[in-house]
């Protein structure tokens, strides 16, 4: 074992405090050290050449560099070793700048002593260094997109247009998502359906996109480049190949239940398409409400279907496929305002949510675009819009700003004025957050041109008096109490994570943030990536996002998939766990605690021919955290590059 130690002055950053020359001298006598040198800048070309010539001259096989933090130049020196034909992992860095000279400038003597200790520890560590190599992994060049809203559709289109296969999985009977429910979009007032429908059709027709509606991802295993995914295609009870989408079945079905698409403002049948422009244009039977499935009676849809597409015996189909990347575009849910006692616990009939209002104001919605109140069908002439319901509210456990409500509320008030010109609109708000392109101008237009009254103050109570609603608020700008009568109150309910986000995260083995949105790898620099390689985020699953942001994220997530697919192969992390199977007892403690599920059991044959179970590390999944190593009772699993021997040697070096 021939170790070389190279100590950097870093200009005077280190040598100004640590006596580098003396240190190089004393270290050179340390057992195992063949040569110890110092230089002004080790990371510079002359510094690296010094290392290279020393390696050649003294036939060194391991190197310690005492310099700045390994975060800066570990890779520089690894490359230097590689140039020399040495394994890049035969290197240790002693951090004597950030963790010594810079923080102990008050006491050069102790700093020098500490620097010596740090170098000794590095030497001890490098003595146990082993040659490490990466392995190559092939890539399945197909993408899975979970969620068929605008974010999912856009991601799928972007990937497919680049020439790769995409499977788009959507839980409901049609793609389209939340955007399909909206009436107009802010601030341009484009008709939401008019701009979304072409995208839905394009995705449906794309020869590289496979759309699986009424389907859910059930299980995900594997790793970047080859995720193994199980998808359950729930039985539609309608044969997709035969159905022409004529709609005869749903016009004759006798069962009526609340329409999810219209947020309970209208009824749909037990066999239904969620909305007329649904893609695919094929209905499903909701078995939980269908009379045939509940009572074995009826069967009307089968009788009236002209193309004999109804199949009551159809079963769920399980699909297992491999994908190289996964894009999560699962979207959001809306806050349930029945948590607010002061707003009537959801019991007041004329208090509706913003998404219900979207349906009301939509000309193809349940009222044909007439803004009428649910209690008596009277046109609403005086409407209060209340923002921040279930957002910016610690009491409700929703401290974050829901981001889109300020804008859609402004839009709602404007639409009221457009639909009912003599109506009065009041918006109760705390702050107006209109930071998008043309957003601020839009809000001013609503205030100035449409004369919508903005009242700065949170509403404290809504109650019924006769047919109308009394809203008790406070205008904090004028200091006046407000108690006003309204026909209709629209609550701007906040955007919340999907209610099943916890179980979804467990299934994908990914982390959520404090508010249970899907957490990103880095909030600034990697907003569409997960810390699990190969998993990307798009749209409101990450945080409340408006349409332009969702579309932008969708493109960004698609690029991440594409840059993965553009690679010839993936290399695995070299510093990962390995099992010494000869002493592994097969307790599988490691398997249970591995955060990546990288450890599985394996049967091996002993020398005497007996079969026994041992742990096996999947090299492509393991990320090298070492939790398994610290938990192995028989110390048979070790972390390459940060082995028990290396750490213990460092401890014992002093």
């Amino acid at each position, binding site marked *: 074992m021939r170790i070389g130690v190279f100590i950097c002055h870093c200009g005077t950053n280190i040598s100004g405090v640590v006596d580098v020359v003396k240190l190089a001298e004393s270290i050179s006598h340390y057992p195992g050290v063949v040569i110890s040198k110092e230089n002004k800048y080790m990371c510079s070309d002359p510094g690296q050449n010094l290392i290279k010539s020393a390696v050649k001259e003294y036939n060194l096989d391991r190197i310690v560099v005492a310099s700045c933090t390994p975060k800066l130049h570990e890779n520089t020196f690894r490359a230097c070793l590689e140039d020399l034909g040495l394994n890049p992992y035969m290197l240790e860095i002693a951090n004597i700048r950030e963790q010594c000279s810079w923080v102990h400038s008050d006491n050069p003597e102790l700093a020098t002593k500490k620097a010596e200790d740090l170098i000794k520890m590095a030497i001890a560590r490098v003595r146990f260094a082993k040659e490490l190599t990466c392995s190559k992994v092939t890539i399945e060049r197909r993408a899975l997109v979970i969620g068929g809203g605008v974010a999912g559709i856009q991601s799928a289109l972007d990937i497919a247009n680049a020439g790769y296969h995409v499977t788009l999985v959507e839980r409901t009977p049609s793609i389209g998502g939340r955007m399909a429910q909206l009436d107009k979009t802010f601030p341009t007032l484009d008709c939401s359906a008019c701009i979304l429908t072409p995208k839905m059709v394009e995705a449906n027709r794309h020869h590289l996109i496979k759309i699986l509606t009424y389907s859910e991802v059930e299980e995900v295993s594997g790793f970047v480049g080859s995720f193994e995914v199980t998808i359950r295609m729930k039985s539609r009870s309608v044969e997709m190949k035969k159905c022409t989408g004529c709609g005869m079945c749903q016009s004759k079905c006798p069962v009526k239940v609340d329409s999810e698409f219209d947020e309970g403002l209208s009824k749909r049948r037990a066999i239904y398409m969620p909305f007329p422009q649904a893609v695919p244009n094929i209905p499903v039977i909701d078995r939980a409400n269908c009379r045939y499935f509940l009572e074995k009676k009826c069967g009307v849809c089968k009788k009236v279907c002209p193309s004999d597409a109804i199949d009551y015996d159809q079963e769920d189909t399980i699909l297992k496929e491999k994908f190289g990347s996964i894009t999560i575009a699962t979207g959001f849910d809306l806050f349930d305002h029945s948590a*607010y*006692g*002061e707003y*009537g*616990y959801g*019991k007041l009939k004329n208090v509706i949510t913003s998404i219900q209002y979207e349906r009301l104001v939509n000309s193809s919605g349940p009222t044909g675009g007439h803004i009428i109140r649910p209690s008596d069908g009277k046109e609403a002439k005086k409407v209060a819009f209340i923002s921040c319901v279930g957002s910016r509210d610690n009491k409700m456990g929703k401290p974050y700003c829901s981001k889109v409500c300020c804008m859609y509320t402004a839009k709602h008030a404007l639409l009221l004025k457009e639909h009912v010109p003599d109506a009065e609109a009041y918006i109760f708000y705390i702050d107006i957050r209109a930071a998008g392109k043309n957003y601020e101008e839009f809000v001013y237009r609503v205030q100035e041109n449409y004369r919508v009254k903005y009242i700065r103050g949170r509403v404290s*109570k809504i*109650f*019924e*008096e*006769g047919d109308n609603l*009394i809203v008790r608020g406070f205008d904090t700008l004028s200091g006046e109490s407000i108690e006003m009568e309204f026909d209709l109150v629209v609550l701007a309910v906040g955007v919340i994570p999907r209610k099943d986000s916890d179980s979804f995260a467990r299934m994908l083995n990914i982390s959520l943030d404090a508010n249970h949105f899907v957490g990103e790898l880095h909030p600034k620099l990697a907003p569409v990536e997960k810390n699990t390689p190969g998993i990307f985020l798009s749209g409101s699953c990450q945080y409340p996002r408006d349409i332009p942001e969702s579309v932008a994220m969708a493109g960004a997530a698609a690029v991440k998939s594409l840059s993965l697919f553009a690679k010839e192969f993936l290399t695995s992390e070299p510093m990962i766990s390995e099992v010494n199977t000869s002493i592994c007892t097969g307790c599988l403690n490691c398997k249970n605690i591995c955060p990546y599920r990288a450890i599985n059991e394996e049967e091996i044959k002993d020398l005497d021919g007996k079969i026994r179970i041992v742990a096996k590390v999947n090299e492509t999944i393991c990320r090298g955290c070492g939790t398994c190593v610290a938990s192995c009772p028989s110390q048979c699993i070790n972390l390459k590059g940060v082995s028990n021997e290396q750490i213990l040697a460092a401890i014992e070096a002093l």
Partner: protein
Amino acid sequence: MEYSYYPGCSLKSSSKDYAESVKQVSDKLGITLIELSNWACCGASVSHIPEESLSLALPALTIAEADKYSRDIVASCAACFNRLKSTHLLLGKYPEKKIETEKLIGKNLSVKINVKHFLEVLFEEVKDWDSIIIKKLKGLKVACYYGCLLTRPNDMIKDGKSEDPRMMDNLMEKLGAASIDWPFKTECCGTSFGLSKPEVVLKLSGRILRSAKKSGAECIVVACPLCHSNLDLRQSQIEKYNNLKFDLPVFYFPELAALALGIDYRNLLLDKHIVDPMPLLRRKDLI
């Protein structure tokens, strides 16, 4: 079950009728309320007390007294209940406040016993009303008025929905009455402004009476002597001030429970009410 009973000042003077009905009902149901011999005023409202340490010390005196017997304390006045219970909660939450208060009153506090309102006790003790009700309060439309202090802060009585409490409504429905849904259940009646600024009570209680009347109530049921005096004693003043006619008798909830349990109305001191409840009770064939 046995409880330490804290009647509070009002039940000893202006609300003897409330005290009597509590006594009648608990006797009938076998609930033993043992009055604490050495209780002190709870301070009634934090807004009367010049500083927090004193507003905690006053209820703490009673809590320390009750600690001796390790029975839960029962209060029938909503204000007393609120002061005792929120002090109890606060002292449990802030240990340094507890030490400070113990020093001030010169006694140790265990904060282990519970504080309950008589309404909760009725609810917990009686599981099967049907078998003990003699006379159902059929056709009586009541507006249950909880006031502000029974449910705040968070769930003082264990009722889940603090903005729309149901405990008294459920009790009334079990007794056979029809409790109406109305929005002023937990609005403040004006508390003690009755003396210092009576217009406040006339305005706030006026709105409560108006809402109850509008919602179709024939009477109001309360669980607090102060609510009672504001709604009952001052009702004629309120009527004059608002230029409205209400004529709404105001009952304490145990009074109606007593009637349903077959206790003779003559034992109930109903004659102490200012708005005469007799015509209504007669009309409903309850006496």
